């Protein structure tokens, strides 16, 4: 037991480093503190679940890690680069190559076949890969959609749509996979499938951060961080029965 626990300890270099991160929204006269001084290190290869009540700042934190937004104060480094000091195009490249983002609402493009959805990040990569379509199709195979390549989003189930979105997040071999309630719109069996996929990806070395409300989902992770009112209130490493069972 102890030995396994040790094995779950982070071994890689820190890949997400947050120091006193504050995110403040101003609504009219009022200031909303979405993040109230978050300090956090996540090492390469970790599998982290972020939990907490609604409005506790989980999504806000994920968006910052995903370089979709900038902190109001404090510093946040992704893969060794301070996102507060990066130019817009460099941030775009970071989102393109280093980070894969999976959304609760899938965010697929309408009227676009699955393989084209997955190709999308490659179209924004510099220099442009020449075998975009092959790569996209391989990723779809990896997420178990070999026979759904040309389907449109409306021709796919929720779980299949989320797999397309995951294939899209993975297509550029990111170091970090971020998923904000990826199973929020799915039933529990489909959710388990998705988490099994994440678990396998993590075994291959990708750092994974998942936001979830559901304890069963969080149990897949090796580390569980809980937010409350914009702060981290607990941060525990854990064994994962689901992962054991899956392996």
């Amino acid at each position, binding site marked *: 037991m102890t030995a396994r626990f040790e094995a779950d300890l982070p071994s890689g270099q820190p890949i997400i480093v947050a120091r006193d991160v504050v995110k403040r929204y101003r609504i009219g006269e009022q200031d909303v503190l979405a993040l109230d001084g978050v300090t956090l290190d996540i090492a390469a290869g970790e599998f982290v679940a972020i939990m907490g009540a609604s409005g506790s700042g989980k999504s806000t934190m994920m968006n910052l890690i995903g370089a*979709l*937004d900038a902190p109001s104060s404090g510093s946040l480094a992704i893969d060794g680069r301070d996102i507060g000091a990066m130019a817009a195009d460099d941030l*775009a490249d970071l989102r393109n190559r280093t980070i894969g983002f999976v*959304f609760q609402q899938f*965010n697929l493009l309408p009227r676009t076949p699955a393989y084209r959805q997955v190709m999308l*990040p490659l*179209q924004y990569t510099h220099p442009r890969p020449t075998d975009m379509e092959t790569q996209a199709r391989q990723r779809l195979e990896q997420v178990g959609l070999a026979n759904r390549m040309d389907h449109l989003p409306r021709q796919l189930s929720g779980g299949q749509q989320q797999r397309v979105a995951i294939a899209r997040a993975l297509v550029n071999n990111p170091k970090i996979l971020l998923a904000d309630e990826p199973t929020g719109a799915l039933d529990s069996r489909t959710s388990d499938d998705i988490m099994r996929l994440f678990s396998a990806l993590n075994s291959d070395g990708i750092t994974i951060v998942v936001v979830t409300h559901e304890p069963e989902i969080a149990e897949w992770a090796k580390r569980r961080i809980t937010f409350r009112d914009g702060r981290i209130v607990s941060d525990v490493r854990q064994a994962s029965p689901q992962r054991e069972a899956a392996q």
Partner: protein
Amino acid sequence: MTILDSLRVALTALRSNLLRSILTTLGIVIGVASVIILVAVGNGATGEVNRQITALGTNMLVIFPDAMRVMGRSSATGSALPLSEGDVTALREKIFGVSGISGQLEESAPVVRGNLNWTTSVSGVHGDYTFVRDWPVREGRELNAQDLRAAGRVALIGSTVAKQLFPGENPIGAEVRIKNVPFQIVGLLSVKGQSAMGRDQDDVMLIPMTTARNRIVGKSDVQVDQVGRIYVKLDDQTNIKVAQEEMEQLLRQRRKNGPNSEDSFSVRNMAEFMRARTEVLSTMSYLLGATSAISLIVGGIGIMNIMLVSVTERTREIGLRMAVGGRKRDIMLQFLVEAVMLCLLGGLIGIALGVGIAWLIAYLASWPVAVSLNVIAGAMTAAGLTGIIFGFFPARRAAGLNPIDALRSE
């Protein structure tokens, strides 16, 4: 994201809202179509006028034996004092820069060859006539001084007359009769085509002035050495305005027109007269061109409007594209390409419509119409530019979105 990718995305977007896209381009369609129609009709008319100026001969003045009103002959034609051989000689000798001069005494008469009969315009002219009118003979010879001196019964015929009286035959050397006077055809005039008024200019026959006066023109005319109207050709170095004034002065003296009385003749610069008409036409074209420019602008605003709607509708898509690595310029380009594509679509429809209507006008009004490739290219460029100009603001708005705000939009 390459332009090709952007084109593909734009095409998908346009297709998914096909009806809206087409309605949006209506302003551009109308703008482009009207540009094409106007220029086609305007060019056709201008081209026709220019062709006539050249046909009339550049550097040419025409003197009529009466005071002319702006457009037509004055009503006093019959009673006017004719221009004479003396006037021709005086003009040739006293006016500097005259390179050719000829009278033209015209009468409509039936020309008979065997049992064929054709009524045409028969004109007595001097030897310089074909030179002055830039109208050389195609076959045979010109009229010469000897023909004039001897009042020879020789004639040049236009191609229409040749066709009517000598179908499939060579008319040179053949004989025809006018008012029972036999004439030998010595030359065939080159083809001049239709005039602006639709008159067939090749339906003519030219004979020596002296012969015409003696044998063809009605005997009721008083003066024996009349020459009808006079065509004067000036050499290239001569200022046509100055020469015109000199001629007017000379003729006033000869015809004893007092300084206060109205001239009993008129010297007309035909080319200038035609050009003035062209100017009116082109002024009109400019005005109408401005109208179409306005409709292009209105069309552009329509495009801008729909692009803003599109940006709003697709804010989440923009957010997603940014989230997976799209740069500002990628987003910008995508919406610009879409706006330009909309405009070019409108342009294409407009061209089809414009060319169609121009042909219809040509057909119905038998007005010469010239659809030029330049104008089509120009109209397409204008449509494309409209897309760039009016697509710029919406595209910049899309590119300026913050990724997370875009993703979160409803």
